[in-house]
């Protein structure tokens, strides 16, 4: 059984990468592997925005990621600088930047790129989508 880190580099909508990453994560957990962290980098941070609002008959990828993280106790970490540049802010960054709104909520959290590196160090395998 492996410890796996998943890096997501594409948004929730417009590319299939993030969906495929989630599918991979679910399959890995089912087979007994451990997902130690999902790290959202580049446009991947757009996969985590709570303002993503697909039509009611469409798959809600951001919610599915959140459900997966909670159900399997997997940290879902955004690169904070990649996120801020793309307008993804948690309540803390919204306050710091004098913004009235924020769109990152639990279980997603902000972290530094260092969290990706330390995750890579701990992981047996790193998979990027």
């Amino acid at each position: 059984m492996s410890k796996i880190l998943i890096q997501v580099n594409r948004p929730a909508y417009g590319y299939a990468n993030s969906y495929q990453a989630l599918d991979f994560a679910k399959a890995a957990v089912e087979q007994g592997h451990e997902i130690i962290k999902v790290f959202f980098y580049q446009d991947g941070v757009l996969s985590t925005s709570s303002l993503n609002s697909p039509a009611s008959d469409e798959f809600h990828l951001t919610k599915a990621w959140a459900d997966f993280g909670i159900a399997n106790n997997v940290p879902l970490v955004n690169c904070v600088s990649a996120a801020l540049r793309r307008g993804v802010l948690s309540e803390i960054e919204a306050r710091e930047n004098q913004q009235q709104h924020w769109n990152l909520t639990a279980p997603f959290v902000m972290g530094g790129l260092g969290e990706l590196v330390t995750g890579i160090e701990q992981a047996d395998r790193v998979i990027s989508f």
Partner: protein
Amino acid sequence: MKTITIIFRHSPHGKANSREALDFALLSASFEQIVSVIFVDDGVLNLLPNQMPSKIGCRDFISTFKALSLYDIEDVFVCETSLVSMGLTTQDCFIDVEALSNEQIKQRLKKADEVLVY
């Protein structure tokens, strides 16, 4: 500590891949990983001097490539095939890079614990 190889495969402008790859490279090195970088395909264009990203509203991250050696990233390689296809040589690059054949790149990738492609 892991051996991490970072591949730059996109042109420096028009998309943020190279800038974010560079951020990741420097960060990894500052976290004491053994980092090497390889420029392939359009990624070799990151190595050309006299670029002015501010003219297209971008931060000049290109000059930050000079910091690779400051972060002890000494293994800086470029794909010879990609260079030649653009009529370039390592002499055209503004930082010290070593050209590798496809076979040499393959060997490098085999040796890495992790390969991240940006």
